[in-house]
């Protein structure tokens, strides 16, 4: 089969404007309700509820299950024809009631879909009416986020849900600043979440990490069926986020967003907001520790000094394997930017940085990391799909692809190895356990990247060396 690229890739590296009327082929993005559902899975005792068609929750559940390999109960208000005509109010209320009966949730997270948004459902009003139906009952809080699938990608849904959760639940008196901090990690793996929490704890801090699906979506076997898996950020913790000493929000692309959970807390409650990159690689992780040191007055613990040392040592040991190699990166913009930061430290040139997102900020984020991006021939593509990416990759003939599972067919066709990171990992086990963050994450990534290059060289050799 012939894959036709559009041949309209911008050589100067600006965001490519997709022609208004062309199809998206093999999308490098997902729809916004998926991101929102994932966030609600990271809130303790929460049940996500999609306000739309049955397929929305089922498809999203399948997609998430295939990555996380965990039960993924996501409810749906399940529109029928008459619902679309008369509005989704009645269905939403029935759904809330049935969830309450079956799951006894601590929180219900309602995310809309293209359908309920297009017919103009007034969800806040429905929620008020629902509360009024039970004046004497202690109903769980309901968080509502607007996630029309025709706006943005799953990342807008993700960050939107974090913001909506904090907006709905946070309380605080501007005068009192407690010792804890808020940490908004972005869409990272359960292993990443565990590592971030470990770092914060080792710095002597307690943190409200939102979302935290490190246990809810990566837990042990059960003795009895758990209607809602244990773990997640507690409602009480989220309530206290307004009194935190500071908020740390990770993601260089997110940092360009006008309103996020962290900026909201700053405006509403005066919680100082620190916006950092995803801590992938040495410098970005250094910055995270600097921010934590600033918040606590404590230096980086010895354990991490050692980890940093081992990482630097490994980078030196393996530098010749990776330096000047060329890689194609794709995926969520923040992950691409974070990874590009790490590659800039080890000499791998990200000749293509591509994302299905279109914040308009990826190019600058990459340019900040690579002031000589143009000389190096680094291209940045926003609003890209896999046909675009593959066409560019063919032309660029990189040594390596770095991204999620959906790039596998491209890797196979153009015969360039793929290092799997991020989400989704649908064709390998262990997607939840991939570590990207911190010195430890960078070391794990470095080993995988270097070993992939070594393996390629070894396999290509006619000699069959047993040491490389």
């Amino acid at each position, binding site marked *: 089969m012939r894959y036709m690229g559009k041949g309209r890739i911008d050589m100067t590296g600006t965001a490519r404007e997709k022609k208004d009327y062309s199809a998206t082929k093999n999308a490098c993005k997902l*729809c916004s309700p998926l991101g929102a559902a994932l966030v609600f899975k990271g809130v303790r005792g929460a049940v996500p509820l999609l306000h739309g068609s*049955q397929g929305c929750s089922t498809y999203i559940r399948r997609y998430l*299950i295939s990555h996380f390999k965990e039960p993924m109960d996501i409810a749906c208000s399940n529109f029928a024809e008459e619902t679309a005509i008369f509005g989704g109010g009645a269905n939403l209320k029935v759904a*809330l009631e049935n969830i309450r009966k079956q799951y006894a949730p601590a929180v219900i997270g309602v995310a809309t879909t293209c*359908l309920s948004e297009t017919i103009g459902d007034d969800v806040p009003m429905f929620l008020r009416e629902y509360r009024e139906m039970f004046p004497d009952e202690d109903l769980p809080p309901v968080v509502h986020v607007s996630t029309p699938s*025709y706006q943005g990608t799953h990342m807008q849904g993700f960050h939107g849900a974090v913001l909506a959760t904090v907006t709905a639940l946070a309380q605080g008196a501007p005068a009192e600043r407690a010792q804890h901090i808020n940490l908004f990690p972005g869409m990272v793996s359960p292993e990443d979440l565990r590592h971030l929490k470990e770092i914060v704890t080792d710095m002597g801090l307690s943190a409200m990490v939102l979302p935290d699906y490190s246990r809810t979506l990566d837990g042990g076997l059960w003795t*009895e069926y758990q209607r809602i898996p244990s773990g997640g950020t507690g409602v009480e913790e989220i309530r206290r986020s307004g009194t935190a000493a500071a908020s740390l929000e990770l993601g260089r692309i997110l940092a360009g967003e006008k309103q996020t959970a962290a900026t909201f807390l700053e405006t509403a409650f005066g919680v100082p907001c620190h916006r950092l990159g995803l801590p992938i690689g040495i410098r970005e992780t250094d910055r995270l520790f600097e921010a934590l040191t600033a918040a606590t007055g404590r230096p980086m613990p010895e354990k991490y000094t050692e980890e940093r040392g081992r990482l630097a040592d490994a980078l030196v040991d393996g530098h010749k394997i990776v330096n000047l190699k060329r890689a194609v990166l794709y995926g969520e913009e923040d992950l691409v930017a974070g990874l590009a930061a790490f590659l800039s430290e080890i000499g791998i040139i990200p000749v293509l940085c591509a994302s299905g997102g279109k914040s308009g900020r990826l190019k600058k984020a990459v340019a900040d990391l690579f002031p000589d991006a143009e000389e190096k021939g680094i291209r940045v593509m926003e609003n890209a799909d896999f046909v675009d990416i593959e066409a560019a990759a063919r032309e660029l003939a990189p040594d390596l692809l770095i991204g999620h599972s959906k790039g596998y067919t491209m890797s196979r066709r153009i015969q360039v190895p793929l290092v799997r990171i991020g989400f989704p990992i649908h064709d390998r086990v262990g997607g939840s356990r991939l570590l990207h963050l911190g010195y430890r994450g960078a070391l794990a990534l470095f080993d995988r990247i270097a070993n992939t290059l070594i393996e390629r060289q070894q396999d290509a050799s006619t000699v069959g060396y047993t040491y490389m």
Partner: protein
Amino acid sequence: MAESSAKTTTDIPILKERESQIYQKGKAPFRMTCGKHSLAGSVSQRACVFCGSRVVLYPIADALHLIHGPIGCAAYTWDIRGALSSGPELHRLSFSTDLQEKDVIFGGEKKLYHALVALIETHQPKAAFVYSTCIVGIIGDDVAAVCKQVEKKVGIPVLPVHSEGFKGTKKDGYKAACNALFHLVGQGDVSDVSPYSINILGEFNIGGEAWIIRDYYQRMGVEVVSTMTGDGRVDDVRRSHGAALNVVQCSGAMTTLAEMMQEKYGIPYIRVSYFGIEDQSKALYDVAAHFSDRPEIMERTRRIVRDEVQRITPELRKIRQALEGKRAAIYVGGAFKAFSLIKALRYLGMDVVLAGSQTGNEADYEMLRDMCDDGTIILDDANPLELSKYILEKKADLFIGGVKERPIAYKMGIGFCDHNHERKIPLAGYSGMLNFAREVYGTVSSPVWQFAPGRKEAGPGAGG
């Protein structure tokens, strides 16, 4: 729950509105409430109308499949099925009009038109299917009109599939797909089609199953005009009206098309299943019986069945020894598959303690009741909590289902067999039965269950 209620060992509540869709087989008769829209807030394992259409048409490998709507519906169905093609692989690509906010406001017809024309120009398909998703009608797009316009311009069939997600259940999606397919039927030349010929309907070539089945029929001396839609080709569909008989698998995904072909072209149809020795053999014998004026077809069929069964029996016997008395739960899309699985599991010496489906009808559930042993739980349109409750209460050793059922089984330390469209190995046919037995044995016999706290009784090697 109606009938003698199952002994409750879990505290998982069942919603009142769901009670008439859950039964325990006992002496009293019951009438399953089914075929209705899923209850809001119940985490149904079902998908939507779009999904029904998409699964039926997906394997047509030389057609363009364009999904008109926001990106999700296309992204989540990109290359998710193991439906193989022996030639073109256009079906494995995902195309979406990726509607944006401005399209929702101003309409998506222009975008649809241009996207379609460009895609057809690039990929040169034999036909194009355009799937409507939820919001398409609501924003006022006339998809049928755009399809007609494009058809005129490009000269290939461009078929609208009316699959708005909320307009019914998955079954309505099957119908919408059959309606689209029916537009192709009758367009091809059938002058060289044998009077001893069939169409295979409702077989999607997961892991190459259609090839296995087709091979049996061909060895019987029966021509297979088209397989719908496994390893499907537009031109085959176009001449499918030349076949003498439609052989329909699967609970209803393509019965609508068979009925339409019967009415318009007078082609009779029979229902079959290719799972398990018993049903697979019946599927061959029933076709042979249809061509009774050619006794040699039946002769060959007997030989094929004998040879194939002989080939797999020794290993099946060994596996059966290990599985004897183990308990299985089944929750699948169509009830017809459940019937076959019950028989196949019995052949392997296992007891079925739960059987359910997403889309069964009243007759299907009567059939299930007749087939099942006393005490078996029978469910329609179940949710994860119900499934968990009963697999625990019934102490299942094995769960057969799809992606969404898998983690439920695993969390509780119960073996699992994928019997959905995502799997990569063929489970149909005689060789498929052997694969199925190996798969079941492979999961049930794993030593890992000894580490599952919920399965204390599963000691080392408990699976045998």
